[in-house]
């Protein structure tokens, strides 16, 4: 299994500072969480696709995640329909039946529109978020967290997490191989209870070796007097350039406009019916 990570490219998106990218992502997430207005969401999706094109990241490089998301959204949509086939009618205040499927389940235009919106809501930010992960260097990310006002100890904890993900993944694989070499079956051939027990044979050493790692790292940091001062500097922090200011200004305007459109008619929902 692959874990999504930083992909090195030379593009405008990569050259933006981490702070700018983080603020852009936060603003976009806020827009998509607050609004239910189809026009705003479509605009946001368009914007994120454009940003993705500029970044020079190829679709092939992130396609595995993309298909994963599609399956997830499909299951979520089916679940929504099964649990609440008339949620759309409730929200938009009308009911236009297309056809009756079975028993109490009828397909309505309102429901289709509602589920289209909910999917769009999830989908619109995905290119931004993916872009953020593949185009921001992990250590710069920690520096930018600190810069937007988050305590540097928390920012440093995030930096440690990003730094050690590959190491712990490697630990996991080595432990899994070692246990399989000892004859512990982790595949579907085992029965549920036995398989759970076998998984514990990986879980326990993995967790306890990590506890040891925590001891070692915190001792090393203590020796270097981590946390002695109220502030710290970051090696990978970069100064703002013109393009950073342009992007931030543009996004702030977009944020305000989208909030205005969303709440102008007194409801988060855009009602075409």
């Amino acid at each position, binding site marked *: *299994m692959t*874990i*999504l990570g930083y992909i090195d490219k030379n593009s405008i998106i990569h050259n933006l500072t981490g702070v700018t990218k983080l603020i852009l992502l936060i603003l976009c*997430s806020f827009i998509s*969480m607050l609004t*239910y207005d189809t026009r705003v969401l479509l605009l946001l999706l368009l914007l994120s696709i454009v940003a993705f094109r500029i970044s020079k990241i190829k679709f092939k490089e992130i396609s595995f*995640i*993309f298909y994963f*998301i599609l399956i*997830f959204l499909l*299951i979520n949509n089916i*679940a*929504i329909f*099964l*649990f*609440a086939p008339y*949620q759309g009618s409730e*929200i938009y205040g009308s009911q236009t039946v297309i056809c009756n499927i079975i028993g109490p389940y009828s397909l309505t235009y309102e429901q289709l529109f509602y589920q289209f919106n*909910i999917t769009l*809501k*999830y989908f619109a*930010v*995905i290119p931004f*978020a*993916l872009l953020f*992960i593949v185009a921001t260097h992990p250590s710069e990310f920690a520096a930018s967290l600190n810069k937007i006002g988050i*305590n540097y*100890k*928390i920012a*440093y*904890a*995030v930096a*440690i*997490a*990003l*730094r050690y*993900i590959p*190491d*712990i*993944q490697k630990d*996991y694989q080595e432990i899994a191989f070692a246990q399989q070499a000892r004859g512990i079956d982790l595949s579907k051939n085992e029965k*549920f209870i036995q*398989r*759970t027990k076998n*998984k*514990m044979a990986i*879980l*326990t050493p*993995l*967790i*306890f070796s*990590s*506890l040891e*790692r*925590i001891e070692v*790292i915190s001792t090393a*940091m*203590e020796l270097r007097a*981590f*946390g002695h001062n109220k502030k710290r500097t970051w090696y990978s922090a970069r100064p703002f350039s013109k393009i950073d200011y342009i992007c931030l200004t543009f996004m702030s305007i977009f944020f305000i406009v989208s909030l205005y459109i969303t709440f102008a008619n007194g409801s988060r929902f855009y009602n075409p019916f």
Partner: protein
Amino acid sequence: MKIKTVVAIGIGSALFLILGRFVVIPTGIPNTEIQTAYAFLAFMAILYGPIAGGCIGFIGHILKDLTAYGSPWFSWIIASAVLGLIIGLVAKKLNIQDGFTLKRGILFNVTQIIANLIAWVIVAPTLDILIYAEPTNKVFAQGFVASLSNIVTICVIGTFLLYTYSKTLTRSNSLELED
């Protein structure tokens, strides 16, 4: 904040991600699996306290969502943070460094059941409705399934981890005088 807490949050979040992605056990019911990551979260909350528990839940879940789905699902991320925070609140009282007794096991499990109910039956569905306007009965059904499976996971695996951990410690007054 102590240095050890900072490091515990970092390593804990990374391990939460790895466990969440790789060490899941399918139960046979679609979309319901045993998330060993939550047993680990409860374990860390008891070892390093409420701040560590809350932060590991929050950061670990964001990282997991970002690397698995590409976008964070904030209602459930906040619920994970709440879970770690509440369980961490009894860390001092439980005092695992002093050994694991039946009474402590019961206190741990009562706390984790309450924390799970608050996180998955109150926090997560409410935020799902507020942020995403998802149907009420769907999110509460999801919440009940999630809290039930996490309660069982933490009860079995979490208690086991705490017990194993207490066995690895050298306790004060553990030396005996030989005749």
